[in-house]
Protein backbone atom coordinates (compact mmCIF):
# COMPACT_ATOMS: atom_id res chain seq x y z
CA UNK A 1 0.00 0.00 0.00
CA UNK A 2 1.56 3.28 -1.04
CA UNK A 3 1.65 6.37 1.10
CA UNK A 4 -1.01 8.10 -0.94
CA UNK A 5 -3.52 5.38 -0.23
CA UNK A 6 -2.75 5.38 3.48
CA UNK A 7 -3.38 9.11 3.51
CA UNK A 8 -6.75 8.57 1.90
CA UNK A 9 -7.62 5.94 4.45
CA UNK A 10 -6.89 8.36 7.25
CA UNK A 11 -8.85 11.17 5.67
CA UNK A 12 -12.01 9.40 4.62
CA UNK A 13 -12.30 6.09 6.40
CA UNK A 14 -16.03 5.78 5.75
CA UNK A 15 -15.72 6.25 2.01
CA UNK A 16 -12.76 3.93 1.72
CA UNK A 17 -14.45 1.25 3.79
CA UNK A 18 -17.57 1.50 1.65
CA UNK A 19 -15.50 1.22 -1.47
CA UNK A 20 -13.45 -1.80 -0.61
CA UNK A 21 -16.12 -3.76 1.19
CA UNK A 22 -18.98 -4.11 -1.26
CA UNK A 23 -21.04 -6.98 0.04
CA UNK A 24 -23.48 -8.00 -2.63
CA UNK A 25 -26.96 -9.21 -1.86
CA UNK A 26 -27.24 -12.51 -3.68
CA UNK A 27 -30.58 -12.15 -5.39
CA UNK A 28 -30.94 -13.94 -8.71
CA UNK A 29 -33.33 -11.45 -10.23
CA UNK A 30 -32.86 -12.48 -13.82
CA UNK A 31 -30.73 -14.34 -16.26
CA UNK A 32 -27.74 -12.08 -15.59
CA UNK A 33 -27.16 -14.11 -12.47
CA UNK A 34 -25.47 -16.73 -14.62
CA UNK A 35 -22.41 -14.50 -14.82
CA UNK A 36 -22.25 -13.86 -11.08
CA UNK A 37 -20.91 -17.31 -10.07
CA UNK A 38 -17.93 -16.98 -12.45
CA UNK A 39 -17.33 -13.48 -11.10
CA UNK A 40 -17.19 -14.58 -7.49
CA UNK A 41 -15.31 -17.83 -8.07
CA UNK A 42 -11.89 -18.96 -9.06
CA UNK A 43 -11.57 -17.62 -12.60
CA UNK A 44 -12.34 -13.96 -11.94
CA UNK A 45 -12.29 -13.82 -8.13
CA UNK A 46 -14.20 -10.71 -7.13
CA UNK A 47 -13.16 -11.23 -3.53
CA UNK A 48 -9.86 -9.58 -4.44
CA UNK A 49 -11.81 -6.32 -4.44
CA UNK A 50 -13.77 -7.18 -1.32
CA UNK A 51 -16.93 -8.18 -3.19
CA UNK A 52 -18.58 -11.19 -1.66
CA UNK A 53 -22.18 -12.34 -1.66
CA UNK A 54 -23.98 -12.19 1.67
CA UNK A 55 -26.95 -14.13 2.83
CA UNK A 56 -29.44 -11.48 3.81
CA UNK A 57 -30.16 -7.93 2.68
CA UNK A 58 -29.47 -6.60 6.17
CA UNK A 59 -25.82 -7.52 5.83
CA UNK A 60 -25.17 -6.15 2.37
CA UNK A 61 -24.63 -2.80 0.76
CA UNK A 62 -24.51 -3.61 -2.94
CA UNK A 63 -27.63 -4.69 -4.76
CA UNK A 64 -27.16 -6.03 -8.27
CA UNK A 65 -30.33 -6.24 -10.32
CA UNK A 66 -29.14 -8.96 -12.61
CA UNK A 67 -31.31 -8.89 -15.66
CA UNK A 68 -34.95 -8.35 -16.52
CA UNK A 69 -37.39 -7.66 -13.72
CA UNK A 70 -40.80 -9.26 -13.84
CA UNK A 71 -43.63 -7.80 -11.83
CA UNK A 72 -43.47 -10.49 -9.19
CA UNK A 73 -39.76 -9.94 -8.81
CA UNK A 74 -40.21 -6.19 -8.60
CA UNK A 75 -42.21 -6.65 -5.43
CA UNK A 76 -39.43 -8.78 -3.94
CA UNK A 77 -36.80 -6.30 -5.13
CA UNK A 78 -38.52 -3.38 -3.44
CA UNK A 79 -38.82 -5.29 -0.19
CA UNK A 80 -35.20 -6.38 -0.35
CA UNK A 81 -34.02 -2.89 -1.19
CA UNK A 82 -35.93 -1.34 1.67
CA UNK A 83 -34.48 -3.84 4.11
CA UNK A 84 -30.91 -2.93 3.31
CA UNK A 85 -29.33 -0.41 5.67
CA UNK A 86 -27.91 2.88 4.36
CA UNK A 87 -25.62 3.53 2.58
CA UNK A 88 -26.54 1.11 -0.18
CA UNK A 89 -25.73 1.02 -3.85
CA UNK A 90 -27.78 -0.41 -6.68
CA UNK A 91 -26.33 -1.53 -9.97
CA UNK A 92 -28.53 -2.42 -12.91
CA UNK A 93 -26.91 -5.33 -14.69
CA UNK A 94 -27.67 -6.08 -18.34
CA UNK A 95 -29.75 -4.16 -20.82
CA UNK A 96 -33.16 -5.34 -19.66
CA UNK A 97 -33.45 -3.19 -16.53
CA UNK A 98 -32.22 -0.17 -18.49
CA UNK A 99 -34.97 -0.02 -21.08
CA UNK A 100 -36.57 -3.42 -21.34
CA UNK A 101 -33.94 -4.87 -23.65
CA UNK A 102 -35.24 -7.69 -25.75
CA UNK A 103 -38.36 -7.93 -23.62
CA UNK A 104 -39.48 -4.46 -24.61
CA UNK A 105 -42.91 -5.78 -25.58
CA UNK A 106 -43.41 -8.27 -22.79
CA UNK A 107 -46.51 -7.74 -20.71
CA UNK A 108 -44.90 -8.98 -17.53
CA UNK A 109 -41.50 -7.28 -17.27
CA UNK A 110 -40.91 -3.69 -16.30
CA UNK A 111 -39.01 -1.51 -18.72
CA UNK A 112 -37.26 1.19 -16.71
CA UNK A 113 -35.99 0.04 -13.36
CA UNK A 114 -34.99 3.53 -12.24
CA UNK A 115 -38.64 4.54 -12.07
CA UNK A 116 -39.24 2.18 -9.17
CA UNK A 117 -36.02 2.16 -7.18
CA UNK A 118 -33.00 4.43 -7.53
CA UNK A 119 -30.10 3.01 -9.51
CA UNK A 120 -26.53 4.21 -9.10
CA UNK A 121 -24.96 2.65 -12.13
CA UNK A 122 -25.65 0.51 -15.13
CA UNK A 123 -23.68 -2.26 -16.76
CA UNK A 124 -24.95 -2.69 -20.29
CA UNK A 125 -24.80 -5.87 -22.31
CA UNK A 126 -26.66 -9.12 -22.64
CA UNK A 127 -24.93 -10.67 -20.76
CA UNK A 128 -22.26 -8.31 -19.57
CA UNK A 129 -19.04 -10.25 -19.36
CA UNK A 130 -17.25 -10.64 -16.03
CA UNK A 131 -14.76 -7.99 -17.09
CA UNK A 132 -17.67 -5.60 -17.55
CA UNK A 133 -18.73 -6.29 -13.99
CA UNK A 134 -15.31 -5.27 -12.75
CA UNK A 135 -15.34 -2.12 -14.85
CA UNK A 136 -18.76 -1.36 -13.44
CA UNK A 137 -17.44 -1.81 -9.93
CA UNK A 138 -14.49 0.49 -10.52
CA UNK A 139 -16.93 3.10 -11.83
CA UNK A 140 -18.97 2.63 -8.70
CA UNK A 141 -15.81 3.27 -6.70
CA UNK A 142 -15.34 6.55 -8.50
CA UNK A 143 -18.94 7.48 -7.83
CA UNK A 144 -18.56 6.68 -4.14
CA UNK A 145 -15.39 8.71 -4.05
CA UNK A 146 -17.16 11.72 -5.52
CA UNK A 147 -20.29 11.30 -3.39
CA UNK A 148 -22.32 10.64 -6.50
CA UNK A 149 -23.57 7.19 -5.57
CA UNK A 150 -26.38 8.69 -3.59
CA UNK A 151 -29.32 6.60 -4.71
CA UNK A 152 -30.41 5.91 -1.16
CA UNK A 153 -30.61 9.66 -0.51
CA UNK A 154 -32.62 10.15 -3.68
CA UNK A 155 -34.96 7.40 -2.58
CA UNK A 156 -35.62 9.20 0.68
CA UNK A 157 -36.04 12.53 -1.05
CA UNK A 158 -38.40 11.40 -3.77
CA UNK A 159 -40.04 8.61 -1.85
CA UNK A 160 -43.50 9.91 -2.75
CA UNK A 161 -42.82 9.48 -6.44
CA UNK A 162 -41.14 6.10 -6.09
CA UNK A 163 -43.90 4.71 -3.93
CA UNK A 164 -46.48 6.18 -6.28
CA UNK A 165 -44.93 4.46 -9.27
CA UNK A 166 -44.66 1.18 -7.39
CA UNK A 167 -48.28 1.29 -6.33
CA UNK A 168 -49.40 2.26 -9.80
CA UNK A 169 -48.00 -1.00 -11.10
CA UNK A 170 -48.37 -3.44 -8.24
CA UNK A 171 -51.54 -2.16 -6.64
CA UNK A 172 -51.69 -1.29 -2.97
CA UNK A 173 -48.49 -2.49 -1.34
CA UNK A 174 -49.03 -4.56 1.77
CA UNK A 175 -46.20 -3.13 3.83
CA UNK A 176 -46.00 0.29 5.48
CA UNK A 177 -44.00 3.04 3.76
CA UNK A 178 -40.34 3.18 4.65
CA UNK A 179 -40.30 6.93 5.00
CA UNK A 180 -43.07 9.38 5.75
CA UNK A 181 -45.13 10.14 2.67
CA UNK A 182 -47.38 13.01 1.75
CA UNK A 183 -46.90 16.47 3.18
CA UNK A 184 -44.41 15.33 5.81
CA UNK A 185 -42.21 14.09 3.01
CA UNK A 186 -42.12 17.47 1.35
CA UNK A 187 -41.11 19.08 4.62
CA UNK A 188 -38.17 16.72 4.92
CA UNK A 189 -37.14 17.60 1.41
CA UNK A 190 -37.40 21.27 2.17
Amino acid at each position, binding site marked *: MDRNKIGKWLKQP*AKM*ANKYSLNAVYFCTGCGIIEIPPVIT*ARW*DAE*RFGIIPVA*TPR*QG*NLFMITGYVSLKTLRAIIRTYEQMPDPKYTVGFGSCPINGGMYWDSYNTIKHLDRYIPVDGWIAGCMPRPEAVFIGVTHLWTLIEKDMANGYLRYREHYDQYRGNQEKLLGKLDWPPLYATGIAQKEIAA
Partner: protein
Amino acid sequence: MVATVAQCVLLPVLGIVIGLFFLGLYRKIMARLHWRYGPPLIQPVIDILRLFFQGGMSHGAVFDFGLVLSLAGAMAIILFIPFAQWCPLQGSGGMLVILYLMLLMPLGTALSGGEAANPNASIGISRKLILALGYEVPLLLILLSVMSYYSTISIVDIVRGQQASVWALFSWPLALPGIAYILILPAVLGVRPFDTTTAPQEISSGPLVEYGGKYLAFEHIIHALSLFLGISLFVNLFLGGAANPIVFFVKILVVFVACVCINAVFPRLRIEQAVSYLWKWPTAIAFLGLVVVSLVK
Protein backbone atom coordinates in the same frame (compact mmCIF):
# COMPACT_ATOMS: atom_id res chain seq x y z
CA MET B 1 -1.26 -4.48 40.48
CA VAL B 2 -0.59 -2.09 37.65
CA ALA B 3 0.61 -4.97 35.54
CA THR B 4 -2.62 -6.87 36.19
CA VAL B 5 -4.79 -3.92 35.23
CA ALA B 6 -2.74 -3.33 32.11
CA GLN B 7 -3.12 -6.98 31.14
CA CYS B 8 -6.86 -6.82 31.77
CA VAL B 9 -7.10 -3.96 29.32
CA LEU B 10 -4.60 -5.16 26.74
CA LEU B 11 -5.39 -8.86 26.51
CA PRO B 12 -8.92 -8.44 25.07
CA VAL B 13 -7.51 -6.00 22.52
CA LEU B 14 -4.81 -8.48 21.65
CA GLY B 15 -7.47 -11.17 21.37
CA ILE B 16 -9.52 -9.08 18.96
CA VAL B 17 -6.48 -8.27 16.85
CA ILE B 18 -5.39 -11.88 16.63
CA GLY B 19 -8.97 -13.01 16.00
CA LEU B 20 -9.36 -10.55 13.12
CA PHE B 21 -6.01 -11.62 11.74
CA PHE B 22 -7.29 -15.18 11.86
CA LEU B 23 -10.44 -14.22 9.98
CA GLY B 24 -8.35 -12.56 7.28
CA LEU B 25 -6.02 -15.50 7.15
CA TYR B 26 -8.99 -17.85 6.93
CA ARG B 27 -10.26 -16.09 3.83
CA LYS B 28 -6.82 -15.98 2.29
CA ILE B 29 -6.07 -19.67 2.85
CA MET B 30 -9.49 -20.69 1.62
CA ALA B 31 -8.99 -18.57 -1.48
CA ARG B 32 -5.67 -20.24 -2.21
CA LEU B 33 -7.24 -23.67 -1.84
CA HIS B 34 -9.93 -22.53 -4.26
CA TRP B 35 -7.26 -21.70 -6.87
CA ARG B 36 -7.76 -17.96 -6.54
CA TYR B 37 -5.90 -14.96 -5.24
CA GLY B 38 -8.10 -13.98 -2.33
CA PRO B 39 -8.85 -10.75 -0.51
CA PRO B 40 -6.23 -8.64 1.27
CA LEU B 41 -5.41 -9.80 4.76
CA ILE B 42 -7.08 -6.79 6.33
CA GLN B 43 -10.38 -7.42 4.56
CA PRO B 44 -12.25 -8.31 7.80
CA VAL B 45 -11.11 -5.02 9.31
CA ILE B 46 -12.41 -3.13 6.28
CA ASP B 47 -15.69 -5.01 6.51
CA ILE B 48 -16.09 -4.20 10.18
CA LEU B 49 -15.19 -0.59 9.58
CA ARG B 50 -17.77 -0.41 6.82
CA LEU B 51 -20.40 -2.01 9.06
CA PHE B 52 -19.75 0.58 11.77
CA PHE B 53 -20.45 3.33 9.25
CA GLN B 54 -23.60 1.61 8.02
CA GLY B 55 -26.88 2.16 9.80
CA GLY B 56 -28.09 -0.88 11.65
CA MET B 57 -31.47 -1.69 13.04
CA SER B 58 -32.12 -2.74 16.60
CA HIS B 59 -34.96 -5.08 17.45
CA GLY B 60 -35.48 -4.10 21.05
CA ALA B 61 -33.62 -3.94 24.34
CA VAL B 62 -33.05 -7.68 24.66
CA PHE B 63 -31.52 -7.69 21.18
CA ASP B 64 -28.87 -5.21 22.33
CA PHE B 65 -28.46 -6.80 25.73
CA GLY B 66 -27.82 -10.27 24.34
CA LEU B 67 -25.14 -8.90 22.06
CA VAL B 68 -23.43 -7.09 24.91
CA LEU B 69 -23.70 -10.19 27.08
CA SER B 70 -22.07 -12.26 24.39
CA LEU B 71 -19.26 -9.79 23.88
CA ALA B 72 -18.72 -9.36 27.61
CA GLY B 73 -18.61 -13.13 28.09
CA ALA B 74 -16.00 -13.48 25.37
CA MET B 75 -13.91 -10.66 26.77
CA ALA B 76 -14.14 -12.08 30.27
CA ILE B 77 -12.89 -15.53 29.31
CA ILE B 78 -9.76 -14.00 27.82
CA LEU B 79 -8.78 -12.86 31.30
CA PHE B 80 -8.91 -16.43 32.60
CA ILE B 81 -7.04 -18.17 29.80
CA PRO B 82 -3.29 -17.64 29.88
CA PHE B 83 -1.75 -16.04 26.83
CA ALA B 84 1.79 -17.33 27.32
CA GLN B 85 2.77 -16.06 30.76
CA TRP B 86 0.03 -13.46 30.94
CA CYS B 87 -3.06 -14.46 32.84
CA PRO B 88 -4.45 -11.59 34.87
CA LEU B 89 -7.08 -13.53 36.81
CA GLN B 90 -5.20 -16.76 37.37
CA GLY B 91 -5.99 -16.97 41.06
CA SER B 92 -9.75 -16.93 40.74
CA GLY B 93 -11.58 -20.03 39.73
CA GLY B 94 -9.61 -21.44 36.82
CA MET B 95 -11.31 -23.95 34.58
CA LEU B 96 -14.67 -23.94 36.31
CA VAL B 97 -15.13 -20.24 35.61
CA ILE B 98 -14.11 -20.77 32.03
CA LEU B 99 -16.73 -23.48 31.67
CA TYR B 100 -19.41 -21.20 33.02
CA LEU B 101 -18.39 -18.23 30.95
CA MET B 102 -18.18 -20.27 27.78
CA LEU B 103 -21.93 -20.76 28.01
CA LEU B 104 -22.47 -17.02 27.88
CA MET B 105 -21.50 -16.63 24.25
CA PRO B 106 -24.12 -18.93 22.68
CA LEU B 107 -26.65 -17.83 25.27
CA GLY B 108 -26.19 -14.16 24.48
CA THR B 109 -26.47 -14.81 20.76
CA ALA B 110 -29.58 -16.91 21.38
CA LEU B 111 -31.20 -14.15 23.44
CA SER B 112 -30.37 -11.50 20.94
CA GLY B 113 -31.13 -13.45 17.80
CA GLY B 114 -34.36 -14.76 19.25
CA GLU B 115 -35.58 -11.22 19.77
CA ALA B 116 -35.35 -10.63 16.03
CA ALA B 117 -38.28 -13.03 15.57
CA ASN B 118 -37.14 -14.39 12.24
CA PRO B 119 -37.89 -18.10 11.75
CA ASN B 120 -34.45 -18.62 10.25
CA ALA B 121 -32.90 -17.12 13.36
CA SER B 122 -34.86 -19.34 15.70
CA ILE B 123 -33.88 -22.44 13.74
CA GLY B 124 -30.27 -21.29 13.80
CA ILE B 125 -30.39 -20.74 17.54
CA SER B 126 -31.89 -24.12 18.24
CA ARG B 127 -29.15 -25.64 16.09
CA LYS B 128 -26.51 -23.68 17.94
CA LEU B 129 -27.76 -24.84 21.33
CA ILE B 130 -28.05 -28.45 20.17
CA LEU B 131 -24.52 -28.33 18.79
CA ALA B 132 -23.28 -26.81 22.06
CA LEU B 133 -24.98 -29.66 23.90
CA GLY B 134 -23.25 -32.05 21.51
CA TYR B 135 -19.73 -30.91 22.17
CA GLU B 136 -20.14 -29.96 25.82
CA VAL B 137 -20.46 -33.60 26.85
CA PRO B 138 -17.07 -34.77 25.52
CA LEU B 139 -15.54 -31.42 26.44
CA LEU B 140 -16.56 -31.85 30.07
CA LEU B 141 -15.14 -35.37 30.16
CA ILE B 142 -11.89 -34.12 28.62
CA LEU B 143 -11.55 -31.26 31.06
CA LEU B 144 -12.36 -33.57 33.96
CA SER B 145 -9.64 -36.00 33.01
CA VAL B 146 -7.08 -33.22 32.58
CA MET B 147 -8.03 -31.68 35.90
CA SER B 148 -7.93 -34.95 37.75
CA TYR B 149 -4.59 -35.91 36.18
CA TYR B 150 -2.89 -32.74 37.33
CA SER B 151 -5.13 -32.56 40.44
CA THR B 152 -5.80 -28.89 39.97
CA ILE B 153 -8.47 -26.66 38.50
CA SER B 154 -6.04 -23.88 37.75
CA ILE B 155 -5.21 -23.73 34.08
CA VAL B 156 -1.91 -22.00 34.86
CA ASP B 157 -0.85 -24.93 36.99
CA ILE B 158 -1.76 -27.33 34.21
CA VAL B 159 0.45 -25.36 31.82
CA ARG B 160 3.25 -25.40 34.37
CA GLY B 161 2.85 -29.12 34.86
CA GLN B 162 3.20 -29.69 31.13
CA GLN B 163 6.19 -27.42 30.83
CA ALA B 164 7.88 -29.38 33.62
CA SER B 165 7.49 -32.68 31.80
CA VAL B 166 5.99 -33.13 28.33
CA TRP B 167 2.97 -31.79 26.37
CA ALA B 168 -0.22 -33.42 27.49
CA LEU B 169 -1.10 -34.50 23.96
CA PHE B 170 2.04 -36.65 23.84
CA SER B 171 1.94 -38.01 27.40
CA TRP B 172 0.44 -41.42 27.86
CA PRO B 173 -2.93 -41.30 29.56
CA LEU B 174 -3.71 -37.75 28.50
CA ALA B 175 -3.22 -38.57 24.83
CA LEU B 176 -6.71 -40.08 24.79
CA PRO B 177 -8.58 -36.94 25.88
CA GLY B 178 -6.21 -35.02 23.63
CA ILE B 179 -7.34 -37.00 20.60
CA ALA B 180 -10.94 -36.53 21.64
CA TYR B 181 -10.37 -32.80 21.86
CA ILE B 182 -8.87 -32.73 18.38
CA LEU B 183 -11.96 -34.53 17.11
CA ILE B 184 -14.36 -31.97 18.61
CA LEU B 185 -12.23 -28.89 17.94
CA PRO B 186 -13.98 -28.04 14.62
CA ALA B 187 -17.32 -28.21 16.44
CA VAL B 188 -16.09 -25.92 19.22
CA LEU B 189 -14.85 -23.44 16.66
CA GLY B 190 -17.93 -23.84 14.49
CA VAL B 191 -16.04 -24.53 11.25
CA ARG B 192 -17.06 -27.09 8.65
CA PRO B 193 -18.26 -29.79 8.85
CA PHE B 194 -19.93 -28.27 11.92
CA ASP B 195 -20.98 -24.84 10.66
CA THR B 196 -24.64 -25.84 10.66
CA THR B 197 -25.48 -22.93 12.94
CA THR B 198 -24.90 -20.22 10.40
CA ALA B 199 -25.31 -22.30 7.22
CA PRO B 200 -25.99 -19.47 4.79
CA GLN B 201 -27.28 -21.75 2.06
CA GLU B 202 -29.80 -23.41 4.34
CA ILE B 203 -31.10 -20.85 6.80
CA SER B 204 -29.57 -17.58 5.55
CA SER B 205 -26.83 -17.38 8.16
CA GLY B 206 -29.14 -18.41 10.99
CA PRO B 207 -28.96 -16.25 14.12
CA LEU B 208 -27.25 -13.47 12.17
CA VAL B 209 -30.10 -13.09 9.72
CA GLU B 210 -31.48 -9.88 11.16
CA TYR B 211 -28.16 -8.25 12.04
CA GLY B 212 -26.88 -5.31 10.10
CA GLY B 213 -24.58 -2.38 10.57
CA LYS B 214 -22.80 -2.12 13.88
CA TYR B 215 -24.64 -5.09 15.35
CA LEU B 216 -23.19 -7.33 12.67
CA ALA B 217 -19.80 -5.75 13.27
CA PHE B 218 -20.01 -6.77 16.91
CA GLU B 219 -21.03 -10.26 15.86
CA HIS B 220 -17.95 -10.46 13.65
CA ILE B 221 -15.79 -9.40 16.58
CA ILE B 222 -17.41 -12.01 18.81
CA HIS B 223 -16.78 -14.62 16.16
CA ALA B 224 -13.14 -13.58 15.93
CA LEU B 225 -12.79 -13.76 19.71
CA SER B 226 -14.41 -17.17 19.90
CA LEU B 227 -11.96 -18.51 17.33
CA PHE B 228 -9.08 -17.15 19.37
CA LEU B 229 -10.50 -18.53 22.63
CA GLY B 230 -11.27 -22.02 21.41
CA ILE B 231 -7.77 -22.47 20.03
CA SER B 232 -6.06 -20.89 23.04
CA LEU B 233 -7.82 -23.25 25.40
CA PHE B 234 -6.70 -26.24 23.35
CA VAL B 235 -3.12 -25.02 23.14
CA ASN B 236 -2.98 -24.39 26.88
CA LEU B 237 -4.45 -27.71 27.85
CA PHE B 238 -2.71 -30.05 25.45
CA LEU B 239 0.11 -28.32 23.64
CA GLY B 240 1.83 -27.11 26.77
CA GLY B 241 0.93 -23.44 26.57
CA ALA B 242 4.03 -21.33 26.15
CA ALA B 243 6.43 -19.28 28.19
CA ASN B 244 6.84 -16.78 25.41
CA PRO B 245 4.02 -14.90 23.62
CA ILE B 246 5.59 -15.46 20.23
CA VAL B 247 5.79 -19.20 20.72
CA PHE B 248 2.22 -19.18 21.92
CA PHE B 249 1.12 -17.24 18.85
CA VAL B 250 2.90 -19.67 16.56
CA LYS B 251 1.19 -22.57 18.28
CA ILE B 252 -2.32 -21.17 17.93
CA LEU B 253 -1.52 -20.22 14.35
CA VAL B 254 -0.55 -23.79 13.49
CA VAL B 255 -3.70 -25.20 15.07
CA PHE B 256 -5.81 -22.61 13.28
CA VAL B 257 -4.33 -23.35 9.88
CA ALA B 258 -4.97 -27.05 10.44
CA CYS B 259 -8.60 -26.27 11.26
CA VAL B 260 -8.97 -24.16 8.11
CA CYS B 261 -7.64 -27.02 6.02
CA ILE B 262 -10.20 -29.35 7.57
CA ASN B 263 -12.80 -26.71 6.86
CA ALA B 264 -11.83 -26.67 3.20
CA VAL B 265 -12.26 -30.36 2.50
CA PHE B 266 -15.63 -31.13 4.01
CA PRO B 267 -19.20 -30.21 3.26
CA ARG B 268 -21.38 -29.46 6.22
CA LEU B 269 -23.19 -32.05 8.28
CA ARG B 270 -26.81 -31.93 9.27
CA ILE B 271 -27.34 -31.08 12.90
CA GLU B 272 -28.47 -34.52 14.02
CA GLN B 273 -25.58 -36.13 12.13
CA ALA B 274 -23.21 -33.72 13.85
CA VAL B 275 -24.56 -34.54 17.28
CA SER B 276 -24.56 -38.27 16.68
CA TYR B 277 -20.94 -38.00 15.55
CA LEU B 278 -19.99 -35.92 18.57
CA TRP B 279 -21.65 -38.32 20.98
CA LYS B 280 -20.11 -41.39 19.41
CA TRP B 281 -16.34 -41.43 18.89
CA PRO B 282 -15.15 -38.31 20.72
CA THR B 283 -17.31 -39.11 23.73
CA ALA B 284 -16.22 -42.72 23.79
CA ILE B 285 -12.54 -41.80 23.59
CA ALA B 286 -12.92 -39.06 26.16
CA PHE B 287 -14.72 -41.42 28.51
CA LEU B 288 -12.06 -44.07 28.04
CA GLY B 289 -9.46 -41.40 28.73
CA LEU B 290 -11.19 -40.42 31.95
CA VAL B 291 -11.30 -44.03 33.11
CA VAL B 292 -7.65 -44.63 32.26
CA VAL B 293 -6.56 -41.38 33.89
CA SER B 294 -8.42 -42.18 37.10
CA LEU B 295 -6.94 -45.70 37.13
CA VAL B 296 -3.40 -44.45 36.53
CA LYS B 297 -3.76 -41.73 39.09
